[in-house]
């Protein structure tokens, strides 16, 4: 760890220390005193010590120990031990979440050790579902809670990255790109319109973005999946909802926690490529096969092919990759008081996350500060949470991973003499032709940074008129200020590139989101009937403002000048633009939960949403859901029959929710005001006209989901199992099919409610927990299947997409649509015998060694009409398996995660495996030769050959066919963590003020099993319809970190 401790940290420690109430510190300073106080009859305070254990006799850390009726409290250490100063005649209250509180009178005892028992009722965790909370036992919806304690072991910036493999129904793809949020979908792709991300609700605030949320602050994370749990979110519920609550202070002695880790990162893998002489050897065959030589274009053979020894031997991957690093420092102070009149809580948490990317030039830094606090007095309760985040990202430029495999090894990284316009970098030349860009130079000549400040906060105030009736106001605010800068210095970094001036583009903006929810809540138990009904009204407003300016030609226009630019220093032409986007939503909602004897469960919800995004005629939409549940295990006959089954519940839910996630103002045709033309020389005349087609008449799309679920608990819930099967149908799906270009539309394809989409899947989660003596362990596994189909588009044959993938009826969204590759012709005879039914030779130009494709439509030629649908990027199954164990002070956990049944189109391999144009080759590239009669890889053949047949064959061999579609299944050892907690006695003998100390090492992405030939089968492609196309994406990182966790 060479970096100095970040500034925030330096300020934070003294600041936090100042806040410490002195009394507990003093107490800690004088304790422990094992001697009993002999001053008889004294009502003076005495020091009480002891150990709190669970029902198994294991020490319970974190148990609150409070002197009843005071704010004097402490918590047990990692071994369950505590020490507190209490009045001789006082009473100690021991409380712990999930356990029954216990009160013991001090009565002069200096040692009070006891065990507390789990509260079987409270053990049922409380789950936030919509605007109510429910006991998990009584839940009738498909809801997954993620073990955030385990998830937070991953050394990553965002919690989404860490929950991969830890829950069902959620597919997450990560990348190694610093600052890039992972892609996440819940229960398949619910929409075709690209807005398939879930809604996040953080302490009541609705948001699309939790990249900047500090994972350390998260207390719980719940994934709502079925309509019953999400329809209350109306128009935002269709793609699932992730509910996050952040930590709050607990009454008692203030606690300081410090956690820091640091480590190194490298990409999980890279290509193994040919060196200069190996590359040239294949190229020479490619030229020779194409007829180049003494009689045909000898001058067009690249010189470095003939004499590679006269040229450099560059390893471009070495040039762009480095060992990156990650560091995280987190410190928090929390506490609170509980009194007769007031109860308060507070938490202050600061964090610095610093990442130096494994690709040169990239990095990510994020600083967060959180303040959560609350007050309860009488019938009034208020809680607030707010986080300030500052993030600074330096992005990758161009396509470095693609260029690194495309650029020839005979091109130097640096070459000051390449051209008068060069900035000192090497690029192609007629001796070593390339169409690529020097990726080292593009990281250095261009600097793209993103800087943002984000506030996410909410206030939740509640007033109880009666015990059973309360009013709640929930206010949320998200505010984002950002500055994106893109500075391109002068200098040429690719062959024959134009001489563009240096430029700086600045894009500044602010996004504001406001949320207000008014909720009236009725909650009463009447005999065996539990009734909870709420009514609500809410408004939401969003406003995004941005302005963009570009200035060109900076004074230091000299090649390679590295100075930072500012807009006013540009002397060339400038451009300016700016936009405002406003959005609003009005909602009425109601939710009802009913149970009879906690045994028969019924819920219903309804929401009416109006959205400014739709045509005025279609603004309002109605959404609702209902669910029923039966806790069979609560029936007496069942309890008697199968006593070892501690919980059995059957659930069913059905409902509908919507989606309006497609941007503003789309229903109106607008006039483009910058359609200009310079009629006379340099004078620019302003022109205006409609250039894009609008999404006329669009309305809500609706997703209907049916869910069947079963929850099972065995042996007092030591084994739990939860299974769900769902079918969801999206109707009136907002779809933007590819329009005929002859309509002249110059914008994105407009939307219409013309699609239908079906997702179905099975989800299974099982876990087992066991403690025996000093050894505790648990295992947990989960499995999710997804089956996605487009069932309707507007007209026969209508599709979306035109590249390697196509979205069409009867196929999954973004299915691969490719010409089927059918091996390699071994002889000319085979070519001549390869005919269609009419006897037409299908590939007459081909020779031995050329690619054979399937003439799907039998027309005697190979063209786009022969494309076939292949499977999709959507894995048929995603799964995770985790285990954790602890023995004495040691703890060990691991997570294996993977996906199966998905395909990946490998663009890097398609680039390298073609021999008609310049690129490097993979080291194991073994094309067809008479001596090596390959059936998978055609012969090397340059373009522009001596005959028309050779030219056609070269182009045919280079087609992007099914040849480059690969199995994307993988299994990955995602996380391994080994920790050691210094035993409390050992610790307290040496450093008095530290209550617990744990050191740990973590490995992330340690090993991967896959058949995929590229560096990483898990990647993020931002194009919604081409999610399975690996365009040389940034591979994930293998990270090894060491860390320390201290409690004061």
């Amino acid at each position: 760890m060479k970096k100095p401790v970040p500034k925030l940290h330096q300020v934070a420690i003294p600041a936090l220390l100042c806040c410490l109430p002195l009394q507990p510190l003093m107490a800690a300073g004088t304790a422990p005193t094992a001697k009993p106080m002999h001053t008889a009859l004294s009502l003076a305070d005495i020091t009480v010590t002891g150990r709190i254990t669970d029902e198994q006799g294991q020490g319970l850390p974190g148990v609150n120990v409070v002197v009843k009726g005071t704010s004097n409290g402490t918590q047990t250490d990692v071994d369950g031990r505590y020490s507190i100063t209490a009045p001789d005649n006082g009473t100690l209250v021991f409380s712990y979440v999930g356990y029954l509180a216990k009160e013991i009178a001090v009565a002069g005892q200096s040692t009070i050790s006891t065990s507390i028992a789990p509260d079987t009722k409270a053990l049922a965790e409380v789950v936030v579902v919509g605007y109510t909370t429910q006991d998990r036992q009584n839940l009738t919806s498909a809801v997954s809670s993620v073990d955030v304690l385990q998830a937070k072991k991953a050394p990553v910036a965002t919690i989404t990255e860490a929950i991969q493999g830890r829950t069902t129904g959620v597919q997450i793809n990560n990348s190694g790109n610093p600052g890039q949020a992972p892609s996440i979908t819940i229960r398949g792709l619910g929409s075709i319109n690209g807005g398939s991300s879930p809604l996040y609700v953080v302490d009541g605030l609705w948001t699309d973005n939790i990249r900047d949320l500090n994972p350390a602050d998260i207390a719980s994370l719940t994934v709502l999946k079925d309509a019953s749990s999400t329809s209350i979110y109306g128009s935002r519920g269709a793609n699932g909802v992730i509910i996050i609550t952040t930590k709050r202070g607990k009454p008692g002695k203030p606690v300081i926690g410090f956690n820091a880790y640091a480590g190194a990162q490298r990409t999980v893998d890279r290509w193994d490529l040919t060196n200069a002489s190996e590359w040239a050897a294949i190229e020479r065959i490619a030229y020779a096969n194409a007829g180049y030589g003494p009689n045909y274009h000898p001058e067009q053979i690249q010189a470095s092919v003939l004499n590679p020894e006269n040229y450099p031997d560059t390893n471009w991957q070495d040039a762009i990759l480095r060992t990156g690093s990650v560091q995280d420092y987190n410190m928090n102070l929390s506490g609170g008081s509980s009194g007769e009149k007031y109860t308060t809580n507070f938490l202050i948490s600061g964090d610095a996350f610093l990442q130096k990317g494994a690709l040169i030039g990239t990095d990510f830094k994020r600083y967060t500060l959180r303040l959560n606090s609350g007050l309860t007095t009488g019938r009034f309760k208020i809680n607030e949470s707010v986080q300030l985040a500052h993030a600074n990202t330096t992005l990758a430029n161009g396509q470095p991973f693609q260029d690194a495999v495309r650029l020839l090894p005979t091109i130097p990284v640096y070459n000051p003499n390449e051209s008068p316009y060069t900035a000192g970098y090497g690029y192609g030349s007629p001796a070593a032709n390339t169409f690529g860009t020097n990726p080292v130079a593009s990281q250095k000549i261009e600097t793209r940074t993103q800087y943002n400040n984000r506030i996410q906060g909410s206030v939740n105030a509640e007033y109880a008129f009666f015990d059973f009736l309360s009013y709640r106001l929930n206010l949320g605010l998200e505010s984002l200020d950002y500055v994106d800068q893109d500075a391109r210095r002068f200098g040429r970094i690719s062959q024959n590139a134009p001489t563009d001036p240096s430029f700086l583009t600045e894009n500044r903006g602010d996004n504001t989101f406001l949320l207000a929810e008014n909720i009236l809540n009725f909650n009463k138990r009447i005999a065996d009937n539990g009734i909870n009904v709420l009514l609500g009204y809410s408004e939401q407003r969003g406003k995004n403002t941005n302005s963009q300016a570009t200035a060109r030609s900076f004074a230091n226009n000299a090649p390679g000048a590295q100075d930072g630019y500012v807009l006013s220093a540009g002397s060339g032409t400038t451009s300016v633009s700016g936009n405002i986007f406003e959005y609003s939503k009005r909602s009425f909602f109601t939710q009802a939960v009913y149970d009879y004897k906690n045994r028969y469960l019924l819920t219903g919800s309804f929401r009416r949403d109006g959205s400014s995004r739709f045509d005025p005629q279609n603004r309002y939409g109605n959404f609702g859901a209902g669910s029923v549940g039966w806790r069979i295990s609560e029936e007496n006959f069942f309890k008697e029959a199968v006593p070892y089954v501690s919980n059995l519940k059957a659930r069913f839910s059905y409902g509908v929710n919507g989606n309006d996630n497609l941007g503003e103002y789309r229903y109106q045709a607008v006039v483009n005001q910058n359609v200009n033309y310079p009629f006379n020389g340099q004078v620019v005349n302003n022109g205006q006209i409609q250039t894009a087609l609008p999404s006329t008449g669009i309305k809500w799309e609706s997703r209907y989901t049916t869910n069947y679920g079963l929850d099972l608990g065995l042996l007092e819930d030591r084994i739990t199992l939860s299974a769900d099967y769902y079918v969801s149908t999206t109707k009136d799906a907002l779809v933007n099919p590819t329009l005929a270009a002859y309509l002249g539309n110059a914008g994105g394809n407009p939307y219409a409610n013309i699609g239908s989409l079906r997702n179905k899947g099975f989800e299974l989660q099982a876990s087992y927990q066991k403690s025996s003596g000093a050894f505790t362990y648990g295992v947990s596994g989960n499995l999710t299947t997804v089956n996605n189909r487009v069932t309707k588009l507007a007209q026969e044959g209508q599709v979306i997409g035109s590249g390697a993938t196509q979205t069409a009826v009867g196929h999954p969204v973004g299915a691969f649509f490719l010409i089927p590759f059918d091996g390699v012709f071994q002889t000319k005879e085979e070519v001549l015998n390869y005919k269609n039914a009419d006897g037409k030779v299908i590939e007459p130009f081909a020779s031995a060694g050329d690619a054979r494709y399937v003439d799907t439509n039998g027309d005697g030629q190979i063209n786009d009409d022969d494309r076939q649908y292949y499977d999709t990027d959507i894995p048929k199954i995603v799964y995770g398996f985790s285990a954790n164990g602890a023995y004495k002070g040691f703890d060990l956990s691991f997570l294996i995660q993977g996906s199966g049944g998905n395909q990946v189109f490998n663009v890097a391999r398609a680039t390298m495996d073609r021999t008609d144009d310049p690129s490097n080759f993979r080291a194991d590239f073994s094309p067809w030769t008479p001596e090596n009669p390959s059936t998978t890889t055609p012969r090397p053949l340059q373009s522009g050959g001596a005959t028309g047949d050779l030219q056609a064959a070269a182009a045919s061999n280079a087609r992007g066919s099914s040849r480059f579609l690969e199995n994307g299944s993988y299994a990955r050892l995602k996380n391994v963590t080994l920790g050691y907690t210094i035993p409390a006695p050992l610790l307290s003998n040496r450093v008095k003020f530290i209550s617990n100390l744990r050191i740990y090492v973590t490995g992330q992405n340690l090993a991967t099993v896959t058949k995929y030939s590229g560096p990483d089968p898990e990647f993020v492609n931002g194009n919604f319809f081409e999610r399975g196309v690996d365009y040389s994406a940034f591979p994930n990182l293998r990270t090894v970190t060491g860390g320390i966790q201290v409690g004061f």
Partner: protein
Amino acid sequence: MKLHTLTTAALLGTMLLTTGCEKDLLDKQNPNQPTVENFWQTQTDAQAGVTAAYSALQFTGVYARWIHFANDIRSDEGYSLSPWTDLANFTRFVQFDYNLEPTRVIWEDHYRGVFRCNQIIANVPAIQMDDAMKKTLLAEAHFLRAVFYSNLVTQFGNVPLILEPSTISSTAQQATVEQGWTQVITDLQAAITDLPVSNDVGHATKGSAQGLLGRVYMQQHMWQEASTLFSQIISSGKYALVANYLDNFTVANENNSESLFEVQFSSALQGGGQDVSGASEGFERPQFFGPPGIGWTDGRARAWLLDEISEKTTTGEVDPRRDITVLHYPMIVYGDTYENRKIPLTDTFWHKYQDDRTQNFENYFSGINFRVIRYADILLMQAEALNELGKTADAVPLINQVRARVQLAPLANNFSQGQLRTQLMHERICELAGEGTRWSDLKRWGLLSTPASVSMLAASNHDPDFINFVIGKSEYLPIPRTDLTADQNLKQNPGY
């Protein structure tokens, strides 16, 4: 005061504030762009609309870039050795991907232009404005639509004709080549009727429309109709050859007396994107045709042009048009020698329309206007029309006007009709090489229709790329895959 009362009051107050029940909460007006509903109201709107239609001429698929690959590089005058082999193959008549960028973008961008013209033709008639201005603007829209459709018919043959402003649900009938030309003729006739003889700089004039219509008639061998139009242009006295041949290809003397219609380009803006503030309005061809170290060199000039344009002038010099047209050894390449630039000495590049006369680099922002039709072409086309009509003797003086400008001796007036045909082929190459006329010339002369003529073109010292030319297929580009998929009624061109 009790805390309860306070908090209750505060809560109720906040509730009212936060949920003010604004009636128009959901009415969000787009502040960024006016809606179409409020457009097409005034003369200013009509003029802005027409400017926008002209702006479509600058699209990469129209005159900024790709059309020059389709016309000049695919013809025998040019070729490509691009490391983007799909592009090189496109110019070699080897194309497997029907959505390949040049093909797709030419199609797409021309129809974007058509969409704009259709809006003007549908909306301007209802606007209350100056009548003369209204007529002119509508005529300009008809002219521009004809420009777009005539390029589409030339490149793609059987194209859908869409003549009304499109909506998301519009469809169009696929027309035959003949129907396509008929539409172009109809639009041009409307344009000729209402276009003024002189118009503001850069706008279409009566002469522009007459010239284009004459060219369309020529392609269909309607010699008499063509000749009549050319006579009108010549006798209008508005046009004359400029003294200096080079003035047709540089920024120095744009919109000159020889120019019937040219696309206006400007280097003033260097921004990216299309139809956004600050977007470039530059000519991109010079960057794509620039020699190595200067431009992408994706399009090159065939060396046979050097021999073709080699007649000696009356003063014993080589025809000056040779070096203006083709950059070749030992000419100076953008301020430096072939040797210093390490360019193989046998390499030949396009020099016409390149910027080396004013700077030693290229980029995407050249300000040189592209001359769509110029008077020299009118003279040569009139000569050809007259020759085809049997008036060979009347044709020769027109050719001599063009020759005289570059100090070539006049041709003797003793040609047979057949001899003059051959002579005109030579004259057109010398005068017009690299100006986008060759592809249509080859078609008109039938040189793309017989195996003998195609194999002549494919000679190894001429344009061996023609070895891949398939008669009945390669005359047209494939219709892009996106449109065939989106509109199942469209038929692909033969052979694809």
